[in-house]
């Protein structure tokens, strides 16, 4: 199983029946592929609807229906469209149960940096700042390192998206929870050691005394 699929699959286990969920572009979008049939989640698309379905097949393309990445998608039965004010009332108002986003950096205090690299990459924050502040639960889903460099840090160095809002970090190496006491490793991938993940993480990892093996089996 592809690394990214593994991460997405593990994230999917965090979603509960009835949850309103916003999935960021890229890896987070893949989470939708792993939601069990008996769990109904409501995907919110910040450009203005709830009840997003899969990417549109060629025959399903509707020029008036795109997701927040500008991709033609479908809408489920019972979907609802709205304008951007309502979209962010939903987001900032605490009506999104879970948001899943990628990160350039995340740190042990739950700070997140995912919107710019000064002098290099300045795409803008889009709706990310509102989502991270407003969602009840913020899950960072990403590959553990970038070209061998740690992304889970003692303290983010890039401009922040939000301060202290991240709840959970899920990578191919493990599941880490941001707590008052620090970053706690709750689950670890079956094919690595605690030493491996510590080496790949700049932030100090507190090892849960009930540390579990991360369920990513196919």
């Amino acid at each position, binding site marked *: 199983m592809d690394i990214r699929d593994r991460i997405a699959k593990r994230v999917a286990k965090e979603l509960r029946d009835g949850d309103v969920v916003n999935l960021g572009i890229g890896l987070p979008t893949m989470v939708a592929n792993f939601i069990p049939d008996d769990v109904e989640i409501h995907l919110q698309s910040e450009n203005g609807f709830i009840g997003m379905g899969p990417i549109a097949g060629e025959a399903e393309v509707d020029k008036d229906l795109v997701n927040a990445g*500008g991709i033609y998608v479908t809408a489920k039965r019972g979907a609802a469209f709205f304008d*951007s004010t309502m979209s962010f009332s939903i987001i900032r108002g605490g009506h999104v149960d879970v948001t899943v986003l990628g990160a350039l950096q995340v740190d042990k205090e739950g700070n997140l940096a995912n919107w710019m690299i000064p002098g290099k990459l*300045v795409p803008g924050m889009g709706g990310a700042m509102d989502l991270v502040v407003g969602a009840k639960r913020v899950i960072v889903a990403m590959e553990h390192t970038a070209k061998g460099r740690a992304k889970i840090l003692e303290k983010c160095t890039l401009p922040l998206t939000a301060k202290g809002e991240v709840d959970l970090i899920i990578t191919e190496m493990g599941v880490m929870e941001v707590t008052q006491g620090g970053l706690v490793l709750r689950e670890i991938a079956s094919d690595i050691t605690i030493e491996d993940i510590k080496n790949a993480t700049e932030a100090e990892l507190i090892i849960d005394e009930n540390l579990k093996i991360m369920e990513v089996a196919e």
Partner: protein
Amino acid sequence: MEKIISKEALSEFLKDGMTLMIGGFLANGTPESLIDFLIEKNVKDLVIICNDTGFPDKGIGRLVVNRQVKKVITSHIGTNSETGRQMNAGEIEVQLIPQGTLVEKIRAAGSGLGGFLTPTGIGTMVEEGKEKILVDGKTYLLELPIKADLALLKGSKVDEKGNIWYNKSTRNFNPVMATAADLVVVEAEEIVKAGEIDPSNVVTPGIFVDYIVKGRG
């Protein structure tokens, strides 16, 4: 009052240096025919308030590529590399605002509010230069209204009185922009008679709309 006009009749309202709001989200729900017209007339030094700068060949991005934009006030420029290039070259000014804050600033202007308190941006670069206000033990940023000289919208169905109905995800920033500009022009995909949109389904009341232009479809 006849609101349906030809694009050409808009010429008198276009001025170099004016501030525009343009609806749409990654070019979905963006009035492409009105952008055609801005390009044709080659109005310059525009300040554009918009969710994003679209793509180089689609939506608001076309105005950037055609070098008609002095400044964009937006939440995202990542899908149009030309905006980033001009920004790095010092040819365009880019003011980035969180999407939820941007839409709310527009709403505040249209709704007669002097500002609003949002938690978004606290502890980030976004808070620089802004007043912080503590309410119930939580810190918020005071964000101020933003308005425009002219708003250009796209409606799926527009009746002759200017009432607008938007299909699916094309709605986005269009309705709120209708409230916050001195002059409001909507590009209609379809123009219908008054009453053909069920009054309970109208999204933008016609009183906000000054002119209607039939889109190229």
